[in-house]
């Protein structure tokens, strides 16, 4: 593993995607302001052109410009990440410049790169699709103040998208709880505003408020836990905390501290019982933003959970369990069941997707539980040791493909929102007649969420189940009684999948069977950007499900780069 100091040459190479994002951010702030503005030297009549403000050029005043800048930046960052993954990435650790007590700040390796792929991919798709979602007034011609204001607001939205991406990637890279927290807050605050961005709709403002209040309480609790951990260990470095925890971990102070920190992340992954704000937030936010919450933001929470549970409070090597094992197992069971039952009862497609997202969080928590139940005995290395690796691979793969079909489903709803409303099941009515390809895409997303082969969602769910069963079966089990109890989580998971089919299919039935709502028989609003995004999602869902092997290998390498840290 290479180490490098901040702002060295290697630093710039390793953090290329983030720097790109930063450059994009600057461009987003500056470029839309470029105009024929001049500066008059005081006391003279000499006007120096300084290009800020004034009457803006036709290019810079184009309301679509911010969206393009954001999309291109995020896509560029995505490609940069994929490129560095492709080039056989070594781990690069960024340490503080203090030579004696150099602290590890950021770590660039396969693990964090995969998460960056998730973040940038989701955000790029969402910002591309938002071009059709956010109201843009006519280009050129006379605009009144209100319209101008609406156009100006475009820049704000995409700036927030970029800061959100920046914060998330800091979370993925952080090796220090404090750095991680900064990233988390940067991303969180961006999402609070993004949720409330549709100021025209009451639901949006309410959702933003709720999400903000609950979110900041969760963050506050997390911060409090952070301070307790600092009090206990005198450092917030992951490796220091982990070493300390291995020595004297099972004490009230660190346990309470970790528990509090987990509340913060639990909110992000929308695990029950911290999920209450999620359905409201998703329902009130514009659909692309809700899609980001359900994919990228959730992945960010998972990074936190993985770091806290598997690095800091690592499972005990001797008896194959972790202190948090039973607690997390119960939480997983609760989350997946609650999410699915609540989704059964919701008639708002966005709330339904929100609850399905809760259920998916439950599946992933079950995967984490399985890792906690894994016997960390070196003598198992090579056979049983692979079990935890398998689960980790499955989790990464699941988060990655979730972007395709979860976000895709939200983008379909986004078109319906532009058409008027997507908050009732009947809004989807007759979609198959209004635009067959869109209905087909939605159907693909739904069955992928339900885990029907050959979609990507099946493969990822199968892998999570396989990982759990692998740990549950252990070695030499000959009867159900010999299984570790995490095996029953797998059973609960498949039963939950069966329950979930009902509400996913209901969407399909409404789309194909029912008539459109009164006055909504006509064609849907146009917009090739959002349709392109949806097409990308469909292709990814199907192709990864059928030919996903290389992606699987990538996740495996990423998981390995995490496990070398264990």
């Amino acid at each position, binding site marked *: 593993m290479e180490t490098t100091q901040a702002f060295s040459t290697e630093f710039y190479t390793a953090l290329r995607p983030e720097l790109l994002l930063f450059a994009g951010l600057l461009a987003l702030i500056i470029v839309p302001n470029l105009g024929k503005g001049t500066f008059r030297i005081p006391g003279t009549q000499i006007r120096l052109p300084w290009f800020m403000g004034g009457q803006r050029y036709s290019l810079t005043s184009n309301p679509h410009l911010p969206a393009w800048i954001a999309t291109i930046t995020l896509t560029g960052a995505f490609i940069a990440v994929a490129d560095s993954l492709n080039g056989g990435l070594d781990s690069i650790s960024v340490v503080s410049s203090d030579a004696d007590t150099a602290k590890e700040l950021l770590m660039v390796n396969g693990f964090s790169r995969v998460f960056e792929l998730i973040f940038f991919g989701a955000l790029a798709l969402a910002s591309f699709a938002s071009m059709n979602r956010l109201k843009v007034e006519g280009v050129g011609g006379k605009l009144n103040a209100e319209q101008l204001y609406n156009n100006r607001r475009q820049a704000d939205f995409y700036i927030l998208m970029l800061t959100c991406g920046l914060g998330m990637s800091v979370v993925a890279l952080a090796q220090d709880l404090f750095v991680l927290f900064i990233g988390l807050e940067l991303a969180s605050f961006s999402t609070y505003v993004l949720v409330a961005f549709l100021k025209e709709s009451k639901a949006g403002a309410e959702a933003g408020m709720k999400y903000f209040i609950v979110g900041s309480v969760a963050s506050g609790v997390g911060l409090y836990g952070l301070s307790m951990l600092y009090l206990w260990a005198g450092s917030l470095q992951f490796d220091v905390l982990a070493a300390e925890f291995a020595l004297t971990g099972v004490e009230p102070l660190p346990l309470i501290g970790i528990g509090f920190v987990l509340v913060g992340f639990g909110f992000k992954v929308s695990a029950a019982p911290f999920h209450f704000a999620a359905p409201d937030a998703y329902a009130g936010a514009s659909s692309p933003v809700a899609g980001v919450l359900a994919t990228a933001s959730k992945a960010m929470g998972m990074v936190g959970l993985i770091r806290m549970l598997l690095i800091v409070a690592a499972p005990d090597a001797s008896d194959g369990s972790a202190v948090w094992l039973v607690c997390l197992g119960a939480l997983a069971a609760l989350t997946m069941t609650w999410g699915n039952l609540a989704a059964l009862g919701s008639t708002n497609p966005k709330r339904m997707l929100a609850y399905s997202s809760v259920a998916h969080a439950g599946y992933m928590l079950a995967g984490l539980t399985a890792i906690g139940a894994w016997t960390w005995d070196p003598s198992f290395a090579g*056979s049983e040791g*692979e079990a935890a*690796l*398998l689960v980790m*691979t499955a989790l990464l793969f699941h988060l990655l493909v979730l972007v395709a079909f979860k976000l895709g489903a939200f983008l379909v709803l986004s078109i319906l929102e532009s058409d008027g409303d997507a908050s009732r099941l009947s809004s989807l009515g007759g979609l198959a007649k209004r635009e*067959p*390809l869109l209905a*087909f895409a939605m159907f693909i997303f739904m*069955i992928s969420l*339900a*885990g*029907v*082969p*050959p979609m990507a969602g*099946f*493969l990822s769910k*199968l*892998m999570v*189940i*396989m990982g759990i*069963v*692998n740990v549950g*079966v252990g070695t030499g*089990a*000959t*009867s*159900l*009684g010999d299984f570790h109890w995490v*095996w029953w989580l*797998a*059973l609960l998971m*498949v*039963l939950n*999948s*069966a329950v979930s*089919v*009902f509400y996913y*299919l*209901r969407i*399909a*039935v409404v789309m*194909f*069977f029912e008539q459109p709502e009164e006055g909504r028989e006509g064609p849907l609003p146009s917009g090739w950007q959002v349709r392109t995004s949806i097409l990308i999602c469909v292709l990814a869902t199907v192709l990864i499900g059928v030919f*996903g*092997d290389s992606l*699987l*290998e990538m996740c*495996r390498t990423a998981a390995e780069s995490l496990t070398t840290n264990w």
Partner: protein
Amino acid sequence: MQLVGFPVVAGIVLLAFVSNTNKSAHDRLSNPIRMASLAFSLGLFAYTTAMFFEVFANITSDGLAFNNYKLHDSYEWFPALGIHWTVGLDALSFPMVWLTTFLLPVTIIATWHEKNGATYFPTLLLMGGALIGVFVSLDLFMFYVFWELTLIPMFFLILNWGGKDRKYASQKFFIYTFTASVVMLLGLVTLYLMQPDQIGTGGKYGTMTGRTFDIPTLVEHATAANQNGWFMGESMQKVLFVMLMLGFLVKLPAVPFHTWLPDAHVQAPTGGSMLLAGVMLKMGAYGMFRLPLSMFPHALQHFQLALMIFGMVSLVWGAIVCLGQTNLKKMVAYSSVSHMGVILIGIATMQPMGWAAALFMMFAHGIISPMLFAVCGAFKHHYHSMEIGAMRGMAKHSPWLATSMMFAWMASLGLPLLAGFVAELMMLIALWYFIDLEGWSVLWMVGPALVLALTAAYYLWSMQRTIFEGGDETQPPATLHGDVIPDISNEEKLAMLILAGFTILFGVLPWIGLDMMDDYCRTFFEHMISNGIFKGGA
């Protein structure tokens, strides 16, 4: 193997062709697409028939031995998990594949005038491709993928072309069978992970788990392990057996898991019903033979009585319920349940002959039940009603439909010289032999004997009420609105003739298919006995 790829690809291409066209273009395209689908499915049928003559017709019984596959091919699919695209055919799967390719063109012909043809016929092709995929796959993962994949086109067939309650029926169908499948999936995954890793090869198959999804390897390993005790351990083998069987029993379906079937059948369009009864139900029986029966023979012995009870209950209950039906299609659906009971009983006898009877029943029922549903479809198509009493005296005004109905009904109740008779007779002999051999009570014969009478009763009774009764003073049903009573269309006649022809062919010359099934079952039991897994006997 091309067999899977072609229909799926063709279906998708044809669907893509029509997906974004408007209504009138849709109608214009419907005929060429119908022709293309028919030509394509006929090509497939010719291909599998040629395959029969080339590979299976003159094969010796050694070539059909247990766990020995023809046209075996394997490609890497997800090497990281040990998943391969592995296909192969043996005496279990080949008849089913042939049956699928046979039924596809027949279904297309029988439902020639289905509405929205431009999307209907490609969906049928997709369905056929998925079904073939189930039968040819020799990889657990691939098997499960196609197993679930069959649900999607069938869901749409019911939803888009079904009857009045299609919304309810399609969802019930999907959820019911999906639930059973996921339990089966957990069983498959547990089976996959409980095999000792790095078996034999020393390598790890280059996978993350060191295990394989390859069915032949698993079966081979299971057979070796079963010689010295139970593969996977006694209680585990039982648990896995139950988990897998649950998935298959629901698909079959056996009472009490059968409630999805009548709903699905009654609401499904004729083409959907034909494929559903003809091939999709057989997936359950096929899955049993392919996985639990091959891998868990000890558990099979342990659960023999339970299987026998399931079979008897399905057989008798299905027949009794048939008696009370007023809906023609529902009656036929329940008769399927009853016939599936025969398959279970055949399996439970654990005699080569019983197994061969079960296999032949799958095949014969796969030809006869589509004809039953084609008759029901024609009935509905022309009289706009499914009620048994709605149309009387068909013999007078619709001789073609009356004849077809009579033929199909007779075939289904097991008239000698027709395909169904062979299977039923073999099952009865095997059961009798088994009872004698194992010293079970003769009372076990009461069920099948009773059902012989019951089956004759419900079929004859329904025939009497539709074909013969009230010949002269026929009142056309109200649903006809006073139109002239038509006989069936030429396409329907053609489909009936083809189905009837093959029913007679396999009734008179059953050895065409039976030979290989018989060889397979015999070698299976010889294999099990010589390896000391089963005690001597047949």
